[in-house]
């Protein structure tokens, strides 16, 4: 008799040589993919050295890119990257992406075909959940976990309970997967999925691109989840097949698998969502958000700086100018996305609109560089966290939204519904006094 299991349970069982696992059980799972960047890896390398462990268990399972503070923002970060690079050479790690070929790890890994359905993946970074979009068990860990996995190829896990999100209906124009996940987090709270797996299903999810699915899995951790996961369907398999010739196993949840909770959502009823400071769970429909003025608009991060995101922002910025007094910063998530955006002429649109474009980096997402906020400055951002001090000064304010909402707000100078621009001809809207014309706060 086989025990019904969720995808997460199946993957963990298969990787720990168990026929079945139950939530709460501690397993030691083989890890297929270890992702490393310059912030959390050097401490792990030091730990290994202290233990007298000089070799990585299997360098072919390790993929490395510097991403947080690249290009090096100061001497200390230069030293971190140098340490990372030296270690990569020492260990003979072939999958190393140097500046120019680099990218924010969670965006780079799928793009280069390193994540496969059914795999287990870890990284010393909480947004590793992004990779769950491919039907993999992927979770963020600390440096000690990273060190232990580098040494042994295995890691302990408590099998999480799973929450099921059934999302039906189509997202209306101007509403994106970012709005959906911000909405879900606003419903369940920043610890609503604590220690759990968030499994997304439904006709809405099935129609989403891999880019859009990654945004949803990326932010699972903002609800406290261990992982976000979506069954690998044809869209996922085609994406992976175009980038990897390795074999993989697709796991699907059994129909009678047990869920800790389930939530039904009708995507067609959603509107653009903005998460107010200082929690990702402070999401409100844009109609209920005050059209407060902004100092900065930031389009970047592992959540929303893939090519589709840049295209959506460009659709709004095309033929328009950002408002006086606003700084708009566009940071593509990887070098390949950067090149694609260049080819598509998106940079011209951004530049003519008055935005600046950076190379791929985490940058200001975590208050590193490339747009750190000063005291009492207000930023609307496509990133994933708006905690106190996240993007700079502890008295700065961060509002989270989709790339379209961020672009629309940059043009208007205040937090603005992107549908106002999507429905309108650029010239007529540009001629109008934006702030008075926009019906924000009225519904």
């Amino acid at each position: 008799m086989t025990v019904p299991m969720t995808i997460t349970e199946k993957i963990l069982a298969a990787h720990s040589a168990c026929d079945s696992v139950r939530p709460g059980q501690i397993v030691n799972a083989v890890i297929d993919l270890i992702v490393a960047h310059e912030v959390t890896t050097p401490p792990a390398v030091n730990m290994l050295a202290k233990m007298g462990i000089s070799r990585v268990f299997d360098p072919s399972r390790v993929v490395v890119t510097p991403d947080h503070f690249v290009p090096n923002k100061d001497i200390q970060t230069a030293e971190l990257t140098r340490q990372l690079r030296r270690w990569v050479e020492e260990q003979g790690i072939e999958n190393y992406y140097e500046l120019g070929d680099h990218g924010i790890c969670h965006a780079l890994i799928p793009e280069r075909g390193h994540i496969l359905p059914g795999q287990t993946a870890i990284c010393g970074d909480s947004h590793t959940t992004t990779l769950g979009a491919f039907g993999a068990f992927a979770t963020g860990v600390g440096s000690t976990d990273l060190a232990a996995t580098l040494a042994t190829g295995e890691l302990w896990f408590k099998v999480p309970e799973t929450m099921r999100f059934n999302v039906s209906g189509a997202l209306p124009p101007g509403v994106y997967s970012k709005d959906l996940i911000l909405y879900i987090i606003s419903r369940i709270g920043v610890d609503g999925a604590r220690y759990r797996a968030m499994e997304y299903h439904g006709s809405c999810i099935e129609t989403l691109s891999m880019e859009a699915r990654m945004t949803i899995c990326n932010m699972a951790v903002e609800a406290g989840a261990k992982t976000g996961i979506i069954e690998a369907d044809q869209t996922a398999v085609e994406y992976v097949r175009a980038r990897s010739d390795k074999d993989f196993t697709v796991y699907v949840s059994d129909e009678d698998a047990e869920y800790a909770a389930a939530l039904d959502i009708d995507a067609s009823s959603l509107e653009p969502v903005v998460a107010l400071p200082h929690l990702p769970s402070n999401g409100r429909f844009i109609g209920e958000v005050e059209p407060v003025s902004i100092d900065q608009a930031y389009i970047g991060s592992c959540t929303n700086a893939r090519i589709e995101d840049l295209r959506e922002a460009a659709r709004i910025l095309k033929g328009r100018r950002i408002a006086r007094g606003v700084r708009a910063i566009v940071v593509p998530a990887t070098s390949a996305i950067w090149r694609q955006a260049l080819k598509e002429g998106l940079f011209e649109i951004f530049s003519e609109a008055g935005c600046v474009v950076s190379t791929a980096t985490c940058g200001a997402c975590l208050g590193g560089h490339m747009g750190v906020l000063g005291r009492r400055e207000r930023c609307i951002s496509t990133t994933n966290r708006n905690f106190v001090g996240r993007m700079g000064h502890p008295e700065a304010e961060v509002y989270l939204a989709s790339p379209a909402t961020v672009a629309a707000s940059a043009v208007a100078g205040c937090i603005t519904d992107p549908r106002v621009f999507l429905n309108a001809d650029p010239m007529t809207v540009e001629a109008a006094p934006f702030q008075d014309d926009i019906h924000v706060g009225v519904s």
Partner: protein
Amino acid sequence: MGRLIRGRAHVFKRANINTDEIIPARYLTAHDEAELALHAMEDISRDFVSRVRPGDLIIAGGDFGCGSSREHAVWALRGAGIAAIVADTFARIFFRNALNNGFLAIECAGLAEITSDGDDIELDLDAGAVRNHTTGASRLFTPLTPFALELLEAGGLLPYVAQRRGVGSPNA
């Protein structure tokens, strides 16, 4: 590790104290505990660092340590002298990082509500109880799992792995 831990409380009642508050990202370029400790809790309590003494305890609300996976949060607090944290609940990665470092993190609902800064708090790991010697109140807590206790007793995940595999030969 001792089974009784006694120290002075620093209370952070609010839920969802995140790792950006525990150690802001601007200090992540360091990973030395003493250096990180200089900025522990800086964005939430400016004078925490000057008040904290070795052996003190943090008593906190729910979902303590949510946000990024930075282990620097555990190092900063331990570097500042914190001997253990008792919270209503912990965020997943923070809790993992604590155990992996052999650092005591206990889930005890409601303790923050009945504790004030400076109270004299004692954790009894065997009895699974917390006593507030200043007020006389006490609470039971969720006992750690046997695996978590093993990790703590080994001094963290790496010593645990080394013990089981023989130091220096993890592949053996």
